[in-house]
């Protein structure tokens, strides 16, 4: 009460404005305008981000769609309708890139999410100090740039002197020219992605596990459920929202796989490791076919969107 009184006496002007809606004598449009005027400072606070956003995000997004219907020419582009999209779906390169990207995603995403779940469950069972130690050990590799990771894996995959073939040698496997032949190159990249820990996933799972009420486990134990049963029937179902989020996150990430490709194989040998983003990069910035590259990127966006929706539906459905 006293608060209100004070503001009224201090600032009669503003109290007059805010009492306007109650009287409802002014038309709604004018009301909005007054509201905007009253809050001008809020717009000023938003202004820098808004300008940057419009210039470097919103405008390019719209332009990408426009470009995808144009053929780029130095002196004015021409509208070509769906030509670019037709070209995208008629090119063999696109389908090879799509197939490779899908295979990459289909193996790495389930593997990464499930291994993050298993590893974080194991970490959660430990004491505080061990928890933070292992959490760091699994997150540390993910703070280093993929460029660095790709460089060292390229070295580890070296046919003659690489660490990978050496370790496989312990198990009696003959040396394999991992990146040099089209039958193994994509699998080399997939194995590498599986062996890089999903650090963010582990941290998020750990945070979610911390918020599960211990009384649930208490009850299950009284009912005679063993550790594995408790995990399977309590932990896993309650972590489903996190699993959904992580699956989406890593699907989106893996559809955009690029750095490993350009650093390790350049899409080769042949086009054995060509992926969608690497194809877009090549089309746009090696061949300078901007319209076609824009169409490819719109298709990539559509594919990611569709997969996100499917994943969302599936994982939500059987809840």
């Amino acid at each position: 009460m006293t608060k209100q009184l004070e503001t009224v006496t201090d600032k009669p002007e503003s109290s007059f404005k805010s009492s306007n809606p109650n009287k409802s004598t002014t038309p709604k449009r004018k009301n909005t305008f007054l509201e905007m005027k009253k809050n001008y400072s809020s717009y000023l606070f938003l202004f820098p981000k808004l300008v940057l956003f419009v210039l470097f995000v919103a405008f390019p997004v719209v332009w990408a769609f426009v470009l995808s219907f144009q053929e780029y020419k130095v002196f004015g582009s021409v509208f070509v309708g769906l030509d670019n999209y037709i070209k995208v779906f008629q090119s063999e390169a696109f389908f090879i890139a799509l197939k490779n990207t899908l295979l990459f995603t289909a193996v790495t995403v389930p593997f990464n999410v499930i291994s993050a779940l298993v590893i974080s469950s194991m970490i959660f069972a430990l004491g505080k100090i061990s928890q933070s130690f292992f959490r760091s050990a699994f997150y540390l590799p993910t703070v280093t740039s993929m460029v660095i990771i790709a460089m060292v894996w390229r070295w580890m995959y070296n046919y003659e002197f690489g660490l990978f073939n050496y370790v496989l040698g312990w198990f009696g496997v003959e040396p394999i020219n991992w990146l040099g032949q089209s039958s193994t190159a994509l699998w080399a990249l997939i194995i590498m992605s599986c062996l890089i820990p999903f650090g963010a996933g582990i941290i998020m799972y750990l945070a979610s596990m911390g918020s599960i009420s211990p009384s649930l486990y208490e009850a299950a134990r009284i009912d005679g459920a063993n550790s594995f049963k408790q995990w399977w029937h309590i932990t896993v179902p309650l972590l489903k929202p996190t699993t959904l989020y992580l699956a989406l996150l890593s699907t989106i990430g893996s559809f955009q796989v690029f750095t490993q490709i350009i650093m390790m194989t350049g899409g080769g040998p042949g086009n054995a490791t060509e992926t969608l983003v690497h194809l877009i990069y090549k089309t746009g910035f090696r061949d300078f076919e901007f319209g076609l590259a824009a169409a490819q990127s719109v298709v990539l966006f559509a594919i990611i969107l569709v997969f996100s929706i499917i994943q969302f539906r599936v994982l939500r459905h059987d809840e």
Partner: protein
Amino acid sequence: MIGGVTMKKSPAGKLNKVIIYVLLTIFAVVSLLPLYWVFSTSLQLSSYQSEDMERPVSYVDSNPPKMYPMGIPLYFEHWSEAREAKKAGNTEEEAYHRDMMDYIVSNTFASFNSLFKKHDVGTWFFNSVYISVVVTLGILLIDSMAGYVLAKKKFPGRNLIFWIIISTMMIPGQVTLVPLFMMIRDLELMNTHWALILPDLSMVFGVFLMRQFMYSIPDELLEAAKMDGASEWKTYWTVVLPLAKPGLAALGIFTFMNVWNSFLWPIIVLNSAKLYTLPVGLKTLQDANLASFKLLMSGAAVAAIPMIIVFILFQRYFVKGLTLGGVKE
């Protein structure tokens, strides 16, 4: 075994715990091995010849691979032999071993030396640092301002603006690659650092994160500041920002990491060696094909060390940022 969540008190717990420790240690070793290999290779002896060897050998290209820098045991070998030679009064022998010790040290760090002397790694490092710092500070200011009003103020268009901004988070960055390239070219910003800084400052993730965080600031404090006659700017600067520190730290770290590691866009817009950031420079170093793996791994180490230090210093904010960003409404 896996479901160790509540096994602490169960009788089988001890055995399970041992199994968990063993497995986790194996996984952790696998996950950290590539990073270890970066450092190990960067410090590996690339050429060594002792008295009894016909030809110098390289421990970088050796089969089987040497698991740690060979300079370490060899240095101590020569050191102890030098000591024995000294005891025996053999000055010539002692001088030889002393020289070998010096040689081992210089060869071990040779690639770092040549990276900074022959290649532009110093410049690339500086570019990466200053671009990351500028973008991080800019993002912290701009996004906290935006996040603050989007969370705490009511004004027409607030929700519309927020949802438009957030919906673009769904769009993969590759979609804007071509138009952004054309724009930067038309603005004549190609091959400048502005071409990196401006699009980076436009990233929207921070607005989302800051808005989430600002919700937790109690309204009463803002009201109190207002009653004390503080201007909007003063309220934001003296009340809101100090309270938002943990959120700012998390956002700052993630922004720094993203900018430091960003690769696809920089390789498109930068084409002169003086302007490269570290990831771009490393790619050209690798493309040159002249570089040995020792040199490449040294470059990789130079790029990795700052992020590792940042991670060790600010670990808890990484956790905070991840769990905060992951919270859905």
